[in-house]
């Protein structure tokens, strides 16, 4: 490798940067969706009637309210867990699954699928690489990282 082989610290820093994609998703989309979900729950409105749930229902996916909660939590709570490096592989796998759904849905309705595809790639890679040492998972189970 032209820059020399990476040290372990360098690899872990790289994985920390990769995990910052979770924070990025949370700040750009996740918190808005979470805020909206909390608003709906406090207002006592049916989650099935939310805009995103209607889109999910129109796509023919069963249990649109559940799907809506899953999408919202994937882009907020799971994204935060990825950024913190807590339950990273599981969180990243769930978030990647959500992004695979978003990618399929974007292609189906003719929307721009690139963003979903890039997040699918980021979270899919994280589900495989794991969080690295600069993570809460490492503090929790040092031997496993």
């Amino acid at each position: 490798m032209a820059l020399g082989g990476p040290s372990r610290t360098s690899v872990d820093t790289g994985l920390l940067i990769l995990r910052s994609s979770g924070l990025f998703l949370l700040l750009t989309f996740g918190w808005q969706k979470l805020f909206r979900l909390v608003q709906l729950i406090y207002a006592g409105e049916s989650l099935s009637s939310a805009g995103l749930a209607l889109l999910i229902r129109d796509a023919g996916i069963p249990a649109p309210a559940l799907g809506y909660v899953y999408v919202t939590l994937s882009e907020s709570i799971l994204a935060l867990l990825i950024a913190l490096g807590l339950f990273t592989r599981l969180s990243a796998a769930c978030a990647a699954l959500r992004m695979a759904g978003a990618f399929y849905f974007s292609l189906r309705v003719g929307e721009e699928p690139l963003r979903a595809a890039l997040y699918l790639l980021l979270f899919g890679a994280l589900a495989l690489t794991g969080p690295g040492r600069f993570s809460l998972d490492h503090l929790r189970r040092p031997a496993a990282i």
Partner: protein
Amino acid sequence: MNSRPSAERLTNSGLLLLRIGSGLSLALLFGLPKLSAAAAYLHTGQPWPFVDFNRKLGIPAPVLIAYYQSLNESLVALVVACGYYTRVAALSLAIGFAAATLCSLKVGEPSWLAAACYCLMFATILLTGPGRFSIDHLLKSRSKQNP
């Protein structure tokens, strides 16, 4: 990277996925169209919107920067996908996409999100290196066997 062989294999698989996904998607979706526009600009003098965009932003040497980024998003992206001179290539792409993110933000284009995602991916590859499933690793192993 990791003491356990299976975990190390997973990490290397993740890096392979990241390299191939980011490199190929970039080259096929953006790089090759830019390269073809660059060739048309060079040979027939056709207008190139990328150069106009650079001029509009006041970027110095707009034509040179347009060629650099076109090569970055095509050939250099393919080099990253193959895992050859990976860290140098990833450095060039990370710089290119950091600049692209700033430029897109400056003009208020929604494409800044995709540029930022690419920037994150190439910054990661710059630091982690390509992993075992790469030409770099193959060449390194061979040079160790035949010093």
